[in-house]
Structure formats: structure tokens, C-alpha cells
């Protein structure tokens, strides 16, 4: 066994030894020399006395008590020997040495003739990348050393999997560095005027460390989660106490401005997941604010308490301040809100906490004239959270509002582009003949950050990209999650096809089953979208119809679920229109939207090979956020005869051609008849 391992080590001069390694599985096995080429040896091995097979654990256990026994007196030794040996169970056997699982695998090339600087270029390229990506990059690299590095990486990956039991699908080139050879090879080079220069033939090698890391999909998922956290959301917890019996509803008041900005709200009992029913009551009598009535799950008795959580998502709640910024300046946003929380009931204690995405808060307003409600300071800041309160004994009425209600604003630094989709037009076309669902999105995207002041410097942008110090308010790429099983994805804008995108497909999953992985589309707009700039593009993709449509054979009804939009994390959609084009001849069309739509209409859409046109359902929405990623369900019926409409209409066209030919053969167009 020793000799074999030594051979393998010598083989590591950058030349791959795949064939040898492939022959040896995870444990290096000793191959005996006996085979049918050497029958005498085989007989010898079979019948000669063998060395006793030693089980290290047993030996250790047997020898465990011996030292102690040797030091004991006769009486003690007799007692200890009478002990009945325990039955060896799986739990009681503990290995003598607990082997630690390796976390990394180091590997290197041998020293070969290349400059350390040239080799380090490749080192920087592969550093931090997943191992497969690094190998592919080396395969298609134009550099001289790339093939050596490629084989070194492939061998390193194999070794890490085979010897260190690392997970090959998660391996990442965690570190890559270059060292120079032990001695520089110097040669004399004759120059002009009888002088000599020294020509150095450098040699260097690259070392890599492979570790288990996150895959691209995981990194994108984390980035997406970070981006989703950045949305302005308001969560208000009401600790409610009933003073009179028979309370079945609780009224929540939002100021008019707040209600206009709120695009999604949800009321739940704290700790539970089922949302409660909310009814809009409109403006209250003194027109302080907008009232919502929440039906409590159970009637609240006198002095009974309950905690309700109102969660809302506000759109267009922040604005860039200063409104214009150059390319290098940071992005500062301002959020404004009312200081006191409006409520039709008397409030004993209230607190407002404003949490920004980073602790980098430029300024925040200090409330004035609130001494009558405050015991300690009126506002405190800790990290990224600014707390206004606690304020005691607030009774909200018109006088109070006139006297004490004021605006607070928080001016903070925001490190990600603020995106606004001005219009989204989604078209979903169902084809029964092709068993295909095509979804196409026309998106008009705007960067709602501070408008660019001055010129856009391409040089500055590229140097930012090189030094990885991206400016906060420039959108350079987007990551979208498409459903699994997408085919024929396309991305074009007004100029034509945009090739700066990368789609990672995942295989299709059956209808109804939860998709564990999405297809990831990394979009890069044709130009980086700076503050105040717009970009409009179209993306579309096909998915197999079996994944979205179900068929009720008893009634002959087809049901389809179409998602309202493909979420761009952190972006708000101002106006959205979803058009669902059903197959020709579809009847009894019914649809339901996951959240209330602005308007819904039915129209007729005419496309290829249509005679009477296809029914289309058009739904319009406003102010969509990440909470609005629901599925629209449409049900329709298509009789078999409607399916045949298309081929028969084409047949009719063909038949008319044949009829024309029939007529043409019988018409004599000769000028002179003989």
C-alpha cells in the first residue's frame, strides 16, 4: 500500500493521472499479486498460515484494564475480573480515534516556465469561483498556462472528492496564489556595444485551496433575500384591551396619505398565520383618517386583551434627497411619516421604530412639543433603528392632530438601486396543439434613485467594476426567477436581441408539486441604468402546458394558473396589465385573481391561423410589490370541434388552391385556336 501512494505523489507534476486514480476507489486497496497468471502463488496464499487479523478496537479494550490490574492487590484484582463483559452494542462502541472531516483540499501545479505575473492573472480569474466554472474558464482561456491550470483543477477536484470526501457539487476555489520557483534561471544576452544583459527565464507554480462553499444558485438566493428585506414595510402591533363587553371588531385608522401609499395590508393575531378579515369603512366622521374594520376571531370580553399585527407594504414612500447626484456620490433617500400613530381609541403607550437597511443614517428629525407625553427622551437611535417614543396617554382627535401631530423624516443611505417598473404588460398565450404556454413580459423599467447630475463616465463605471466598488444607485444586472422547465427564452429591446444574459435552466416539475428550484435568469441591461434613466425590454419564455393546466374530464373544463408577474426583488410595479389568451373557440371563461384587480375585460385576440379569433382575459393592476406574486386562475372549455378549426381552415385554403388549379386546367388561354 505504501508503494502505491508514493507512486501517486510522484505523478503530480502537472500531468493528470486520471487512469490510475480511476482504478482505485475511495479506500486504496491492496491488490495481491496472485491471479490466474500465477497459480502457485495463489495456492500458497490460500493454504499458508495467515497472520492473525487484528481488530484494533478489541485489542485496545482488552488491554484497557491491564495497567490498572497490575497495580491492584490480589483481592481487588479478583473482584474486577469477575465482571461480566458487556454485550457490545452499537452505541457503546466508540472509535478510539475520531477522524475529523477535512474541510479543505490544497493542491498545486509543479514549477513550470512562466512568469509569476502572467500566472497570477489566471489565479485572480479563478479565485472565489465554483470549481466547475473555473475549469470551464480555463478550458476556453487563451492563455498559455490555462491548460495546465485546467488539468490541475480537475485533478484537485477528483482528489478532494476521492480522498477528502468533500462534496464535489459545492466545491469552490477558495484561494489561489502563485509562488515563484526556488531559483531564478539567468542567462546572458548580448546587447549592443559589447554589453551583456541578463535574461531571466522565470518559473512559478499556482496553489489552490478547494473548500465547500456556496453555489451560484445559493448566492443568488441570498442576494434575493437581502433585496427583499429592503422594501419599506410597516408592521404595527396593537395590544388591545376591551373596556366594554361584546367587542367583535377592532377599528384601525390610517391617515389619508398613508392609506394612499399602502398597496398591501394584512392583519393577523400575533403568532398566528391565518389573516383576519378586514373591511374598508372609508373616512371617519371627523375625517382624520381612513378606517379599517378588523373582525376579531373571537368576541373579546371585558378586560380581555389581544395582540393584533397589521402588516403593510408602502409604495413610493421614499424619495431621493438630494434629488440629483453624480455618478460617484452615494444614494440618500428620505422617508417621511407621521409622528403619532392614529387610532380611534385612547392609547396608553405608543412607540414608532424606524429601521433602515444600514446603520448609515444621515439625519432624523427630533420631535418638538411632545414633553407632555414623554418620560424619557423623545427619540433614540441604536444601530439602524430609530425609536420615537414611548409616548403615553394619547387621545387622537382633530385638536390633538392640529396641535401635536407632526412629520418625522429619516434621511438615510441606501446601497442598492431603487427600481420602479412603470408599466408591465404580461401576455400569456395558451396553445393546446403545441401543448405550450408562452409568457411574454414588456417591461418599462426606471431607476427611481437620484437623477444623474453631469455626464455618465464609462471609464468611471468600468473602473468601479474592476475595483468592485459599485456605486449604490446604478443598476447593472437583475436576477429573475423563472419557473422550472423553461425553454426558448428570449430577451430583446428596441434595438434588437440583447445577448448579455445567462439562463440556468432547471428541469420541469409536475403540476401542483412545489418547485424546489427555479430557473435563474441573470439579465444585464444593454447599458447600466443610472438614476432617472429608463430601460424598456421584452422577455419571454415557453413552459410546457402540462405544468400549468389541469383538466376536469367530467365537465370538460380546463383550469390554468398563471402567475401575475415575475418578481424583480425590491421593485414596485406602477401599472400592470395581464392578458391571458385562451385557445380559439374557448367558452365559459371564468377567472379569479389572487388580490383585487383594478379592472377586468374580455376581448378577442387574433394571431396565426385564426379564423374567429381567440378570447382574451385582460386584468389591470396597480402598485404591485413582492407581496403580490399570486397566481390568476382561469377556467374554460374547448370542445373538440373548436380544436379542429385551425387545421380545417388551413385545409380550406389548400382546397381553394386545388379548386383554382381545377379551373385553370380547363380554361384555354391560347390566343389563336386552331
Amino acid at each position: 500500500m505504501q508503494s502505491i501512494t508514493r507512486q501517486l505523489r510522484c505523478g503530480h507534476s502537472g500531468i493528470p493521472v486520471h487512469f490510475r486514480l480511476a482504478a482505485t476507489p475511495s479506500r486504496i486497496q491492496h491488490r495481491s499479486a496472485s491471479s490466474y497468471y500465477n497459480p502457485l502463488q495463489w495456492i500458497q496464499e490460500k493454504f499458508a498460515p495467515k497472520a492473525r487479523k487484528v481488530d484494533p478496537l478489541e485489542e485496545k479494550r482488552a488491554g484497557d484494564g491491564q495497567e490498572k490490574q497490575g497495580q491492584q492487590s490480589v483481592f481487588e484484582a479478583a473482584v474486577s475480573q469477575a465482571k461480566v463483559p458487556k454485550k457490545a452494542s452499537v452505541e457503546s462502541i466508540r472509535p478510539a480515534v475520531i477522524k475529523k472531516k477535512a474541510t479543505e483540499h490544497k493542491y498545486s501545479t509543479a514549477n513550470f516556465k512562466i512568469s509569476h505575473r502572467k500566472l497570477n492573472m489566471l489565479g485572480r480569474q479563478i479565485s472565489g469561483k465554483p470549481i466547475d466554472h473555473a475549469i470551464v474558464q480555463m478550458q476556453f482561456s487563451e492563455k498559455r498556462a490555462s491548460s495546465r491550470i485546467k488539468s490541475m483543477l480537475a485533478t484537485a477536484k477528483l482528489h478532494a472528492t476521492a480522498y477528502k470526501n468533500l462534496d464535489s457539487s459545492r466545491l469552490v476555489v477558495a484561494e489561489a496564489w502563485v509562488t515563484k520557483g526556488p531559483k531564478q534561471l539567468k542567462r546572458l544576452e548580448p546587447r549592443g556595444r559589447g554589453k551583456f544583459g541578463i535574461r531571466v527565464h522565470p518559473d512559478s507554480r499556482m496553489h489552490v485551496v478547494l473548500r465547500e462553499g456556496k453555489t451560484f444558485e445559493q448566492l443568488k438566493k441570498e442576494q434575493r433575500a437581502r433585496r427583499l428585506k429592503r422594501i419599506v414595510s410597516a408592521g404595527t402591533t396593537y395590544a388591545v384591551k376591551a373596556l366594554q363587553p361584546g367587542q367583535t371588531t377592532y377599528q384601525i385608522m390610517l391617515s389619508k396619505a398613508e392609506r394612499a401609499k399602502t398597496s398591501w395590508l394584512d392583519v393577523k393575531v400575533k403568532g398566528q398565520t391565518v389573516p383576519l378579515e378586514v373591511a374598508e369603512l372609508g373616512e371617519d366622521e371627523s375625517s382624520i383618517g381612513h378606517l379599517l374594520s378588523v373582525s376579531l376571531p373571537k368576541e373579546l370580553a371585558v378586560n380581555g386583551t389581544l395582540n393584533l399585527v397589521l402588516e403593510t407594504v408602502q409604495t413610493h414612500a421614499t424619495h431621493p434627497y438630494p434629488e440629483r447626484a453624480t455618478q460617484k456620490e452615494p444614494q440618500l433617500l428620505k422617508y417621511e411619516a407621521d409622528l403619532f400613530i392614529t387610532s380611534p381609541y385612547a392609547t396608553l403607550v405608543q412607540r414608532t421604530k424606524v429601521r433602515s437597511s444600514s446603520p448609515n443614517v444621515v439625519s432624523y428629525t427630533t420631535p418638538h412639543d411632545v414633553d407632555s407625553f414623554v418620560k424619557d427622551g423623545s427619540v433614540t437611535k441604536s444601530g439602524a433603528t430609530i425609536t420615537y417614543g414611548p409616548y403615553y396617554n394619547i387621545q387622537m382627535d382633530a385638536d390633538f392632530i392640529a396641535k401635536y401631530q407632526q412629520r418625522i423624516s429619516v434621511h438615510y443611505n441606501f446601497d442598492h438601486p431603487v427600481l420602479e417598473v412603470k408599466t408591465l404588460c404580461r401576455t400569456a398565450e395558451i396553445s393546446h396543439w403545441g401543448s405550450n404556454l408562452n409568457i411574454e413580459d414588456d417591461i418599462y423599467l426606471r431607476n427611481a434613485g437620484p437623477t444623474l447630475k453631469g455626464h455618465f463616465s464609462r471609464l468611471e463605471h468600468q473602473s468601479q467594476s474592476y475595483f468592485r466598488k459599485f456605486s449604490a444607485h446604478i443598476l447593472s444586472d437583475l436576477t429573475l426567477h423563472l419557473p422550472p422547465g423553461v425553454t426558448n427564452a428570449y430577451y430583446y429591446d428596441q434595438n434588437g436581441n440583447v445577448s448579455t444574459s445567462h439562463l440556468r435552466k432547471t428541469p420541469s416539475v409536475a403540476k401542483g408539486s412545489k418547485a424546489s428550484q427555479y430557473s435563474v435568469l441573470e439579465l444585464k441591461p444593454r447599458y447600466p441604468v443610472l438614476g432617472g434613466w429608463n430601460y424598456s425590454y421584452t422577455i419571454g419564455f415557453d413552459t410546457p402546458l402540462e405544468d400549468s393546466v389541469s383538466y376536469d374530464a367530467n365537465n370538460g373544463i380546463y383550469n390554468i394558473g398563471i402567475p401575475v408577474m415575475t418578481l424583480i426583488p425590491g421593485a414596485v410595479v406602477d401599472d400592470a396589465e395581464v392578458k391571458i389568451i385562451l385557445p380559439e373557440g374557448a367558452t365559459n371563461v371564468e377567472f379569479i385573481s389572487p388580490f383585487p384587480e383594478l379592472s377586468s375585460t374580455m376581448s378577442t385576440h387574433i394571431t396565426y391561423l385564426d379564423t374567429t379569433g381567440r378570447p382574451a382575459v385582460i386584468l389591470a393592476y396597480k402598485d404591485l410589490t413582492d407581496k403580490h406574486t399570486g397566481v390568476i386562475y382561469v377556467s374554460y372549455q374547448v370542445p373538440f370541434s373548436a380544436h379542429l378549426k385551425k387545421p380545417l381552415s388551413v385545409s380550406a385554403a389548400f382546397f381553394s388552391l386545388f379548386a383554382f388549379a381545377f379551373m385553370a386546367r380547363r380554361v384555354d388561354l391560347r390566343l389563336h385556336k386552331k
Partner: protein
Amino acid sequence: MDNYEAIQALHKSLPAFSPYVSASLLPPIALILLTSTFALAFYFSTLPKDTFPLRETAVASIASVLGGFGVVALFCSVGVNV
């Protein structure tokens, strides 16, 4: 919202859509149908002119039906899912 949940559950429980003709079979079907249409059209052109054009109408109708289905299959196989 109960209605929505009910429809969602129904959609999940029902069997998936299965087309009359599987999508992967469409390209070869298109090829066969269109070549037969072409052959029949050629045959149509060689038929003699009769007073009662029984044969001609028969050949023409078969060819046009095959052509109709062939064109639909062709459209679907090149990606224009009609």
C-alpha cells in the same frame, strides 16, 4: 378568498393536461403529412380531365386535409405555437 383557496385546491388535485398529440411527435408528423400532401398534389396535377371530377375532388380533399394538419404541426414544431 375561500373561493380562491377552493379553486387553488381544485387545480392542484385535478390531473394535468395531456395533449391529443404529444409535442415531441409533432416534427415527424409534420414531415410525413406535408410530404404526403406534396405527393398527392403532384398526383392531382397528373390526373386526366373528366366530366365528373370524382377522382380530382377526392384527391384534392385528402391532400388539403393532410396539408391542413401538416401546416399546424409544422407551425408548432418550429416554435410558433398556434
